[in-house]
């Protein structure tokens, strides 16, 4: 008998809800504090709203971990209607508090409903990319152990690159890690930082720097080509690219052109910026996530 599976996802996934392609999805929203006032994503409070405030008012913002109460509400509502819950989470390397809370809930419900927490080791479109891969697996298989093993393998083969014109947002959010070596340049550069599935424990890593937006895109392409060579991959399974302000901006178009010109891939998805993501990227950022296998 086919199992009924619920997927829980936070709202830092770099794609729009309607791009997920699965009906049994429960969304959780990260609280965002703007000048000490709490907001959650809505039609009004979007990435564009926050970026506009960053530009005009120079507000300070930070995110808080997901609320345990919100998660319990979802699990309580689902426990009698579903056989299994997959919770696709932002990487524990980026938010240990959220991960621990989710693990606590999983343990509390061990005898009631199995919850499988997927530590994506990713943020933004990296999370969304793994979610889409999970949905693809759910459509083709009913074997929970097989799906779990496969999705774990996918997380180690997912690579996210962020071009962040202002690293200060990442630094203020406490997520900068080893990428802090890119801070404080006199020369105007676009730092490229990455969350690499095969080096996830190292957190956010400095990948390179470009003086121009095209050069930053070059850094991404060259890095992912190295990964493809390392893992002997000829065709990338799935790519998600997105711009935090406008997907029509030339830098994202240039990235798309470079990807189409230089990489073989099965699926290219244009993502969608979310409210809480803007807190850590700031304006002008663009992101690419590659799922190799």
């Amino acid at each position: 008998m086919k199992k009924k599976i619920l997927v829980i996802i936070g709202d830092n996934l770099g794609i729009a809800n309607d791009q997920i392609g699965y009906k049994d999805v429960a969304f959780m929203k990260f609280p965002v504090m703007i000048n000490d006032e709490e907001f959650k994503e809505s039609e009004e409070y979007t990435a564009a709203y926050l970026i506009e405030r960053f530009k005009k008012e120079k507000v300070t913002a930070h995110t808080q971990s997901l609320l345990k109460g919100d998660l319990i509400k979802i699990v309580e509502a689902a426990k009698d209607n579903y056989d299994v819950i997959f919770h696709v989470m932002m990487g524990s390397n980026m938010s240990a508090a959220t991960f621990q809370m989710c693990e606590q809930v999983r343990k509390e419900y061990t005898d009631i409903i199995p919850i499988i927490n997927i530590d994506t080791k990713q943020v933004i479109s990296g999370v969304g990319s793994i979610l889409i891969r999970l949905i693809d697996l759910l459509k083709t298989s009913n074997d929970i152990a097989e799906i779990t093993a496969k999705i774990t393998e996918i997380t180690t083969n997912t690579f996210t690159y962020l071009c962040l014109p202002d690293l200060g947002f990442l630094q203020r959010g406490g997520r900068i890690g080893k990428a802090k070596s890119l801070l404080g340049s006199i020369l105007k550069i676009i730092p490229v930082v990455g969350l690499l599935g095969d080096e996830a424990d190292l957190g956010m890593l400095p990948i390179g720097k470009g003086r121009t937006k095209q050069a930053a895109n070059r850094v991404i392409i060259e890095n992912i080509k190295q990964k493809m060579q390392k893992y002997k991959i000829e065709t990338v399974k799935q790519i998600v690219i997105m711009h935090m302000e406008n997907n029509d901006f030339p830098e994202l178009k240039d990235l798309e052109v470079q990807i189409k010109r230089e990489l073989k891939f099965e699926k290219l998805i244009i993502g969608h910026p979310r409210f809480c993501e803007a807190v850590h990227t700031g304006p002008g950022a663009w992101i690419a996530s590659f799922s190799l296998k």
Partner: protein
Amino acid sequence: MVKGISFELEYNESIIKPIFSIANILIISKYVRSFVSHKKYGKRNRFIRTFITNVPLKNISNINLTNIINMLNNLLQKKDNGKLAETIIRKSDELSETWNPNIKYRYCTEFILESENLDKAEFENKLKEWGNSLIIIHSNNIFKIHIHTNKPKTLLKFCEELGKISSTKIDDMKKQHYNLISEDRAYYNKDIALLLIVNGAGFADILKGLGTVEILCYKKVKPSVNQIHNTLLKTRAKNIIAAADDSDILPALKSAITLSKSNIELIESKNVVQLISIMYYYSEFQDLYQNTKVIREHLDNIKFCKIARATRDFAEDNVNVKKGDFFSIYQNRMVFSDRQKGTVIEQSISKLTGMENLITIYCGKKENNTDKIVSKLQSKFENITFESYFGGQDRYNYYITFE
């Protein structure tokens, strides 16, 4: 001799026994030999007598050194014991010989090779030709290789044709040995460092802002071998990538490298723009081999020209230059010359710009304000972004990069 023994006994605070450094053991042994061979152990040398008699032998962990000091103690107690003196000299020579190995293959090389269709026995036979101490650990398609060879880079290139290589490590065993037995042992505190030698305080700051780097900033006089050697020592890195902004510095840099105990890879750069390019691609999270490979691949990535002022009349590439004129050079060829620097900058940009959309002007020490030039250029070339920075270089008035 007395100083060496006292130092080890006083300053080593090991719980079990003081660990004498190899360097100190060899020096003490050398002085004992000299002391004995020159027959300085007469009764007049009371201080040495008293000192050697009171050395706590149980506190010396090296058995050979303990024996030598013990024999010296016996020698000091007796008269005309020629045989014992000969034994001390022989033992001291043996101790020195122990730490003077004949290294036939200089580089201890380790790496991982991932290859699908590689036969281990055949591969092992091929590698045997490259050196000795070969160890191959094999699991599925992954081979971990350890070998002593004289041509590590050629070997890595050869292996790259067989599959994907990673985690490379090349240790110069002669340097390791020298480091071990020398008096001023270098204490490494990081695995890799980058040293750039540059003219101009502005450029020094720009390079520092682009990542973790050691800078040796010189003024008009180029740095000496000693200065470079000291800077290399200060990096305290096991592996160093070194480069300079002028090919005239290379001989001094090469000499300094021969004196250094670290593994040093020299990038033969010729100008400061190449140093900026190095900073774009250097990563402290990559090993020496991967870093130098990527850096060399991209060394000439940034197109640039330089502008200087003539100190005499001359003609080159069909361009006549009068004393006091400004002239621009691109790839060692004269581009344009004029009395006005603004005109030279503008014309050079017109002639050299292709698909680039960012032009950066780095001003030399003699130039102060480029705002007017930049705003004029910006209005003329609307599709190009102009940026200006203080480089502070002595030789050229401007470097202009096209990206």
